[in-house]
Every structure is written in structure tokens, then in C-alpha cells.
């Protein structure tokens, strides 16, 4: 055979598919999709067969290892391997395909890392005097973009503080250390950043100078039986939703869904409205997906993203809440993967 005929880009689709089937790292597969046209179409077939975004992000224990996270789909477990430059970091959270990483020994040193493009962005150090535990983050757009602003939320002695910067900044542009309110969730909704606190007060945050917080709603009414966790989400029809998760003894008992009435400035309870969609609940990154044959329609999938810190006290609080009958069930397809035994938190990881 003449060497000119040996084009790996011209290898038959079926053969490329056999090769790609052997890739256990999801991101290897994604990278193959960007090599050339023929690889792209073959890898896409394999991707579509075996992955169901969003995936479940499952960081390993706090030991130092090359593999710092796993992604779990219904059919396969993928490893994410850290590049050498980020050895000795651990994964804390995710937002639109980016991971928040912190140095194992020095949690003040934080990075954003995209496991697909392998781009990492170093952020300014968190204020050391606060003994911060970085929690999660939101970005206005992709951290690749110089116009992006990043807000990192960290825990300081039980209260949640935030820091704002642009990628590449040496210093935080603004540190929100005087927040008397404890942010539960943040979300970009129609281009503006909203945050909700423990009591259901919705605020609009503006990165102006001076930084502005506008209160949009007063405290939401609700049951005081347990300490609820609140999440924001955008419904398929574009409404701003608040999901209230009631947790007792580290186990979720029930969930409530409210939608925001912009004219009255109040939360209204809604029932049974997801149709064929399922809501995957994750702080800062909740997402609706078509149920298809993977998820159950009109259900909320919640995972253990509340947990912070020590893995020993971890309770594995995850399940499916059906809006129609209010029942909570485990999700079996993930149980089979034995991730139940892993002492770490889970959260949904979406690729965009």
C-alpha cells in the first residue's frame, strides 16, 4: 500500500468507532471529536450512544491522586485526570463545564479548570484571614473570555462570602465580606446575576463600582420544620424557579417548587409542571433535561451537593423526587455503579 493512502482521517467509520469504544475517559472521546471531520462524526456516534449529559461529578477522597474526579452516566464511569500543572489540587465544584479546583494544602489558592480544553485559569488567592473553604462559583460567560467575571463563594465560619474578579486579575476586584445574609444559590437569569439566601430573599447582584445589591423579593414563606436549602433554576418556559429542599438529619424529606411573580415580587408555589422534563438540582448549575428514557419526567433529581468538608460525616443523601405524588426514590442506575460507597460529594456536571 502506498503511504499516501494511509490516512487515519480516512479510516472507515466502523473502525474508528471500535477504537473510540475503547476510550474510557470521556474527555479523550470529546477530544477525538475535535481532531478532524471523520473522527468527529465517528466519535459523536460513540458519545451519543454512551453519554447522557449532564453527568454526575464525583470527586474522589481527599487523597492525592492523578484522578481527581469521576463522571458517571447511566452506563459508564469516566475518569477525569488532572494535568501535571494541577497535581495536588482537588475538585470542589463545577459550573457550565468548568471545575473549581483548590490546592490541597492551601485552600486559598484556587483555579478554574476546563477538563475538555484543558485550559486552566488561576484566580487571586482567597483572603487568608478568613480561613476560607471555597464552595462554588459562577461566571458571566466562559472564563476563556477576557470580559468574563467570576464570583467565587466561600465559607467563612459558617457564613458565605463572595469574591469577584476577572480571569487574569492579580487581586479580587471586590470582596463581599460583609454579607449579613447567607447565599444558598446564585444564577444568571436573563443576563443578570441573582442570589437567594437561606430565607428565600431574592437579590439581584450587579458588578458595578460600587457593587450593588438590589432586593427583589422579601423572605419567602414556608415551613419551618427543617432547615431548607434553596436552589434557583430557569424553567423550560423561562420562568425563574426556586426549589426548596427540606433536610432533616442529613436526609432530604421533601421538596417544594415556587415560581417568581415579577409583578408582585413574591414566590408562588407550583405543582406538577415539569411535563416531560426532569430537573437536575445542583447549586449554581441546576438544569432541566428531556427525560427521554434515562430520567423520569416531572421529577427532581437531587444529589449530595450540600455537604462540605470532612468526608466522614457524609450521609449519601441523593434521590428522585416525583412532583406528582411527592415520593422520594433512589436512582437505581447509579446505585449499580457502586458510587454509593464513595465517600465524597456528588453534583451534576453539565458540559456547557
Amino acid at each position, binding site marked *: *500500500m502506498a*503511504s499516501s493512502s*494511509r*490516512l*487515519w*482521517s480516512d*479510516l*472507515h467509520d*466502523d*473502525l474508528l468507532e*471500535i*477504537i*473510540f*469504544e*475503547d*476510550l474510557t*475517559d470521556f474527555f*479523550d472521546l*470529546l*477530544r*477525538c*471529536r*475535535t*481532531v*478532524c471531520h471523520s473522527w*468527529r462524526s465517528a466519535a*459523536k456516534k460513540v458519545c451519543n450512544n454512551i453519554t447522557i*449529559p449532564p453527568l454526575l461529578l464525583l470527586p474522589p477522597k481527599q487523597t492525592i491522586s492523578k484522578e481527581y474526579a469521576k463522571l458517571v452516566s447511566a452506563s459508564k464511569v469516566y475518569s477525569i*485526570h488532572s494535568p501535571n500543572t494541577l497535581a495536588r489540587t482537588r475538585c470542589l465544584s463545577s459550573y457550565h*463545564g468548568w471545575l473549581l479546583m483548590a490546592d490541597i494544602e492551601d485552600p486559598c489558592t484556587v483555579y478554574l479548570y476546563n477538563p*475538555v*480544553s*484543558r485550559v486552566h485559569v488561576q484566580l487571586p488567592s482567597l483572603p487568608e484571614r478568613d480561613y476560607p473553604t471555597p464552595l462554588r462559583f459562577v461566571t458571566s460567560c466562559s472564563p476563556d473570555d477576557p470580559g468574563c467575571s467570576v464570583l467565587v463563594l466561600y465559607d467563612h465560619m459558617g457564613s458565605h462570602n463572595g469574591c469577584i474578579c476577572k480571569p487574569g486579575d492579580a487581586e479580587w476586584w471586590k470582596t463581599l465580606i460583609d454579607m449579613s445574609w447567607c447565599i444558598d444559590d446564585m444564577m444568571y437569569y436573563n443576563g443578570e446575576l441573582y442570589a437567594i439566601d437561606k430565607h428565600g430573599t431574592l437579590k439581584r447582584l450587579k458588578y458595578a463600582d460600587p457593587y450593588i445589591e438590589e432586593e427583589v423579593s422579601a423572605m419567602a414563606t414556608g415551613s419551618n420544620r427543617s432547615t431548607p436549602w434553596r436552589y434557583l433554576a430557569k424553567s423550560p418556559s423561562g420562568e425563574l424557579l426556586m426549589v426548596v429542599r427540606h433536610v432533616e438529619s442529613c436526609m432530604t424529606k421533601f421538596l417544594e417548587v415556587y415560581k417568581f411573580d415579577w409583578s408582585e415580587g413574591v414566590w408562588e408555589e407550583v405543582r406538577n409542571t415539569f411535563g416531560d422534563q426532569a430537573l437536575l438540582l445542583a447549586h449554581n448549575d441546576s438544569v432541566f433535561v428531556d427525560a427521554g428514557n434515562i430520567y423520569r419526567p416531572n421529577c427532581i433529581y437531587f444529589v449530595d451537593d450540600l455537604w462540605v468538608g470532612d468526608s466522614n460525616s457524609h450521609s449519601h443523601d441523593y434521590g428522585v423526587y416525583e412532583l406528582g405524588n411527592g415520593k422520594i426514590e433512589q436512582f437505581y442506575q447509579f446505585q449499580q455503579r457502586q458510587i454509593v460507597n464513595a465517600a465524597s460529594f456528588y453534583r451534576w456536571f453539565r*458540559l*456547557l
Partner: protein
Amino acid sequence: MSSSLEKNMLILRSSDGEEFIVPEVVAVMSKAIKNMVEDECASNTIPVPNVDANILAMVIEFCKKHDESEAEAASDLKTFDSEFVNRGQEALYDLITAANFRDVKELLDALCQNVAEMIKGKSVHHIRIQFLGYQLFEILTSNFIWNIWCDRDFD
């Protein structure tokens, strides 16, 4: 010629005309050849078009080893496989197309797995250099493509 040929032996002729005398049990590890033998459309000499002598010899070596070592420990065979597939890009490519064309499943699986190992953990840039080599200039001229593909991929 057929009289001198032992029973249960077949002659395989490569694309460049070289002939190999191979036990039938080995030859039929290729499903394509097996079908020909079963349909009795094979004469003494089976032509193997598109596969040159060099590659055909490698394929036969692989099949012989797998035929002989059925009783052997699986780990030995695995070691043989991993050494066997450890070849240059060109030989790998030719072997994969030959294994596919002649339908030799075990060989194809071993080869594809090897290629997958070569891809694992590599950057797109690295994969392109390794596998597309001289095609690189085309891709470099359209450097922005990577981003466009990525954007499309993940929505």
C-alpha cells in the same frame, strides 16, 4: 501442486503475489476466508487482495499464535498481543484495514485497543501530530476550527 499440499492446508496469495501455506484452522480465523472455504468457492489458492506479503505474514503470525495457544494461559496470550500490536503507525494502519477487510476479529480488537491506548490522555494537538502528521498544515491554516467544533459539541 495440490497433490503435494497436505490435507487441511490452504495457500494464501498476497496482493503482491507471494504465497503462504497455512493450516486451514489458522486461515479460517479470518471470517472472510472461512466463508469462502465453507461455500467451497475457494480453490487451492486463495487470493488476499489489498494485503501485501509483509502484512499478510504478520496476520498469519498472529492467527497461528492464537490457534496454538488456546490451551495456554490467557496472560501469555495477552503479552503476545501487546507486543504484537506495538508497531509503527503505517504497519498499524495496514494491519487494521487488513484485519477489518479479512474479518479477523481478535486481531482487530487488539489493534483498535492499542490505538485507543495511544490516544488516551493526549491533547488534540498531539493526536493530530501523531495520527494526521502531514495533514497538519491544512488544520493549522484553519486554527479557529477547534473552537468552533468545541462549541458545537457541547450544546
